[in-house]
């Protein structure tokens, strides 16, 4: 029997190798190299700066508020998204007519382009927009120029939108997790006289842990990277109120073309994401196995 040589296997696999090298590995290394220089778009000569960019960043008040906003964004959205999506999944995990219809509807925001969602919410949040009027009717006294033009409400408004959009997606993952729990466990616990709450507490929750961990990690990686909604809705403003880490990278790298400085900022954000995911894995794992 003639087996193809090793070379053929690599050849078949080469599209991925090329894509990986060109668009992932090379940029990853190159941006670190850039971060050690003062390379700009039109600069005639480039100097090596060592770690100076990093030092400058840590004392840059813009970057500080960008990091602060990123953390607020992540810690402010994830608990809500997780609980709401779990609630939605529990609701849909019953047998009833029209289940797949509701599931599709709940999932709809997640498949819609973020740009479009951000546009719709810009309208809803603007002065005289639907949500604005609703807040007014509820006597909440919304800021005069709409939610997105006030320093106090701009970031929470975008966070609320993100919770709303992401819930449907994570609901789907939770639903998958719920359906993989064997029904016998529920039956056994019912025979043992467990109430519905006890079933949830001692059967559902423990068995959902791996999925919850996965969701929290994925969601925080994604939330650290918010860009599109910020660009469309506020461009980082008003007065840096919605400036996030990734928006800072864009602003410095691709608007001011200060590639070195922006790459250093990108690396700091990357390290934060990596450390945060590692910590979550460690913390949540020990918490749960204990």
């Amino acid at each position, binding site marked *: 029997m003639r*087996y193809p040589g090793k070379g053929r296997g690599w050849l078949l696999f080469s599209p991925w190798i090329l*894509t990986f090298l060109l668009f992932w590995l090379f*940029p990853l290394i190159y941006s670190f190299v850039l971060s050690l220089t003062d390379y700009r778009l039109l600069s005639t000569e480039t100097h090596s700066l060592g770690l100076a960019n990093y030092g400058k960043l840590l004392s840059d008040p813009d970057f500080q508020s960008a990091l602060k906003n990123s953390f607020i964004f992540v810690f402010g959205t994830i608990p809500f998204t997780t609980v709401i999506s779990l609630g*939605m999944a529990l609701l849909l995990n019953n047998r009833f007519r029209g289940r797949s219809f509701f599931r599709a509807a709940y999932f709809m925001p997640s*498949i819609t382009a*973020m740009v479009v969602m951000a546009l719709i919410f810009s*309208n809803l949040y603007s002065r005289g927009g639907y949500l604005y009027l609703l807040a007014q009717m509820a006597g909440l006294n919304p800021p005069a120029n709409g939610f997105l033009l006030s320093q106090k409400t701009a970031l929470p408004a975008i966070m609320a939108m993100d919770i709303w959009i992401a819930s449907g997606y994570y609901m789907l993952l939770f639903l998958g997790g719920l359906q993989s729990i064997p029904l016998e466990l529920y039956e056994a616990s019912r025979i043992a006289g467990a109430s519905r709450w006890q079933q949830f507490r001692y059967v559902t929750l423990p068995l959902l842990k791996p*999925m919850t961990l996965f969701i929290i990690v994925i969601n925080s990686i994604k939330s650290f990277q918010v860009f599109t909604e910020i660009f469309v809705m506020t461009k980082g403003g008003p007065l840096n109120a919605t400036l996030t880490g990734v928006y800072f990278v864009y602003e410095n790298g691709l608007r001011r073309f200060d590639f070195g400085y922006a790459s250093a900022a990108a690396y700091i954000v990357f390290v934060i994401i990596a450390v945060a995911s590692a910590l979550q894995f460690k913390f949540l794992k020990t918490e749960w196995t204990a």
Partner: protein
Amino acid sequence: MKRFRCILFYCALCGIFAAMVFPLIWMLLLSLTGNSSQFTMANFIYIFSANHFGLYLANSVVVALIVTAGNMLFCLMCGYALARRKIIADRFWFYTVMIVLMVPAHIVIIPIYILMTKCGLYDSYAALILPWLVSPIGIFLVRQYITTLPQSLEEAARIDGAGELTILFRIIMPLCRPALAILAVQVFMTSWNNFLFPFILTSSEQYRTLPVALALLLGYQSIDWHQLMAGSTVAVIPVIAVFLIFQKQIISGITAGAFKQ
């Protein structure tokens, strides 16, 4: 008591439904009305005649179709190599996927921007298409599917003297149709909605896709929400149509992907 519970259940269900669907309905309503509150198609006519939405739409369609076709071909090749030539690529594959999962797009975008500019590909279809021709999720889907197929067919063909490419395209590809369908739908939707890369790697109108055009429109001083929402509707409809048709496959694809990770 049971009845009360049932009513409560449906109330919650419908309440969430209303909250989830409302913004999209709102978009549709705004796009179909003008300054008078009568329904009209004027906004759609306007964006296609006075604005270049025809061009943006064509760009989005062309890019999404080429990216989808590329993924079907290349993910098939890579998935096959992984499933059947295990020793060669498994390690490499594992590490590359870990890196791709961990590395955020914002860290690679500046080098890719410089790379594209240096190669003279900045602001071209190539810039929109090249980075996306093969996706790890697609390779993963195909690999999983091929490992469930019996090897006897391939071996029989090999004994008959069929070459590796014949086996791949004549035997494996037809068998992989379900996996390729899921792959195509997912890749199409992702490409269609893609914003960051097209936004940064192009600048002229000629290569502008729908999401980029919409995001830039809001930047202008006077916003006509009705026209903007008409443009948004155009951008949303294909994705929702594809989703409603292939709902089952898409949902199973997403949950499967999450479990394997």
